């Protein structure tokens, strides 16, 4: 035990003395979460629009003010009839233009219907789609409430939409589980594999293997500090998510921490496995970055929904551990489900951990032969 504490002491000295490691462990999680939560948000807020109002009557003014007071849009330019609409798009002044034709109110009163044109900059298709559907929704809402309240319409089916588990459609709800998976992979798998392969590179691993330390003690000594730090990180991300971004934890906090612990164990065993393959720090880092970080970002369902991927990629996504963890975290935090609904994902993670540990032991033995 004393041996072990001495070992941990040394490991923590390595970590605290290396500014790069400190930045990765304590800086990156916070920066990532802030970036994804605040900057790379897919929510629409204050999108710049132009209004081309050719009739300037009561109805068009009311609709315009509805749009602008919704919080989604700000008026960037009021266009005049005859002005080149494409020009404002090309200059990037607006993302969308709302075009009211001449005699809007008159036509509407007379025929009971009228068209409004929405022009959107579809060079960014996602934003264009969201902007037009928001604007369409606001306009329809206005018409229904203000204009048709006295008119009895024939049988009509009203579509009522309710977004469950994330009523505000906040993208940060989606990002928190993903970032947690990514950061834990980064710290647990990448940092462990780098720190073990560093010992190999420096020749200190041989010295330890020639000492009375058992290989399992060496591995545990290398891994324990990262286990602790990863756990602190998981907590930090969850707390930031809850208190800064208002992400709820509807399910059991204990279960959430338990699952995080399992995921960390899985990532650590993956890190050990990488270090048994990589001869030096550089290789360990490349394997971790290309083999772990990229798939985590692209294939785990963190940003891009798995269901929309081509079938081969959907199949590949099954072997990406964060895929399962993200499902677990979303279920616990947003839906408040218990272990009954996520036992399958949990089993997958357990199975992965056991496999990685078994492979590491096998590789380690071959190296010693």
């Amino acid at each position, binding site marked *: 035990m004393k*041996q072990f504490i001495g*070992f941990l002491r040394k490991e923590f000295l390595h970590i605290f003395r*290396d500014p790069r490691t400190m930045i990765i462990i304590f800086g990156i999680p916070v920066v990532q979460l802030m970036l994804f939560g605040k900057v790379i948000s897919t929510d629409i807020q204050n999108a710049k629009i132009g209004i081309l109002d050719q009739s300037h009557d009561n109805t068009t003014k009311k609709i315009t003010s509805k749009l602008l007071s919704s919080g989604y849009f700000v008026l960037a330019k009021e266009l005049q009839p005859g002005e080149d609409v494409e020009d404002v798009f090309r200059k990037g002044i607006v993302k969308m233009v709302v075009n009211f034709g001449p005699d809007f109110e008159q036509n509407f009163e007379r025929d009971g219907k009228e068209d409004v044109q929405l022009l959107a900059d579809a060079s960014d298709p996602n934003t264009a789609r969201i902007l037009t559907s928001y604007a369409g929704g606001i306009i329809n809402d206005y018409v229904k409430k203000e204009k048709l309240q006295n008119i009895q319409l024939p049988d009509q089916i009203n579509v009522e939409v309710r977004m469950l588990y994330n009523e505000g459609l906040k993208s940060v709800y989606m990002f928190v589980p993903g970032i947690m998976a990514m950061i834990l992979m980064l710290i647990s798998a990448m940092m462990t594999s780098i720190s073990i392969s560093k010992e190999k590179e420096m020749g200190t691993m041989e*010295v330890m293997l*020639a000492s*009375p330390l058992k290989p399992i003690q060496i591995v545990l000594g290398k891994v324990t500090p990262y286990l602790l730090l990863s756990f602190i990180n998981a907590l930090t991300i969850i707390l930031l998510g809850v208190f800064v971004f208002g992400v709820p934890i509807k399910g059991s906090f204990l279960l959430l921490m338990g699952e995080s612990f399992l995921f960390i164990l899985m990532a650590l065993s993956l890190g050990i496995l990488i270090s048994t393959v990589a001869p030096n720090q550089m290789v360990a880092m490349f394997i971790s970055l290309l083999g772990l970080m990229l798939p985590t970002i692209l294939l785990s369902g963190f940003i891009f929904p798995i269901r929309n991927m081509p079938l081969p990629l959907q199949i590949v996504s099954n072997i990406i551990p964060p895929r399962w963890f993200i499902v677990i975290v979303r279920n616990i935090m947003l839906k408040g489900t218990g272990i009954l609904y996520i036992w399958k994902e949990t089993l997958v993670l357990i199975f992965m951990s056991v496999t990685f540990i078994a492979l590491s032991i096998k590789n380690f033995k071959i190296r010693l032969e």
Partner: protein
Amino acid sequence: MKEKVIEVRNLIKKFGSFVANDNLNFDVYKGEIFGFLGANGAGKTTAMKILCGLSSPTSGQVKVAGFDIHKETEKVKRNIGYMSQKFSLYEDLTIAENIRFYSGIYGIKPAERKEKMERLLKNLDIESARDSLIGSLPLGWKQKLAFSVAIFHDPKIVFLDEPTGGVDPITRRKFWDLIYEASDQGITVFVTTHYMDEAEYCNRVSIMNEGRIEALDTPENLKNQYSAKDMDEVFLKIARNVEAPPKPSPKGRA
């Protein structure tokens, strides 16, 4: 005869079909400085790793410090020290922290550690550098320190894997003073090297080629036997003889 601290009998190590150590047999005695020479790829590092318990032999008996390397690996490891080519201290830790870590591994009590550390620092004349990071020290110091740390727990045998790579002859000579000192205290020194001038410093040397030990004797005897003026020549003659075609050469084997 003196006490044997290393006994190797019929040691064979194969990697697939490649034979790295082909039937090695030798003894090393207590307090001896034993030079283990050979070209790159001759199999000396493999043999040394087996002796240190870092690798296991395909067949053969190996006893180190009186213990069987296969059955009593733990006891062997308690009684040996090891210094790798890449001299093995942590660059981002201070001298004192490195010593503390390695004493911890070998279970040296803090009081004993402190006393020994003072002696070590004084001996190497680096008391002022106690809290300097290893990375900031000159290479010669690092190597001396690495050696001192490798014998900090008073092992019976210390294994040095090309300990003086990349340093100038004067620093090397000073390093050897430390080796002599350890040998005087009864520590057996098992050293691999490329430098033939270092071979002269050893009590006995073995020369390996293609997995076999081709010669084993004192440097003096080897020079006489091969009628060579220095170890360099001995080494070259052995290497050439082995590389010669299998036909019996007219002069016969030396």
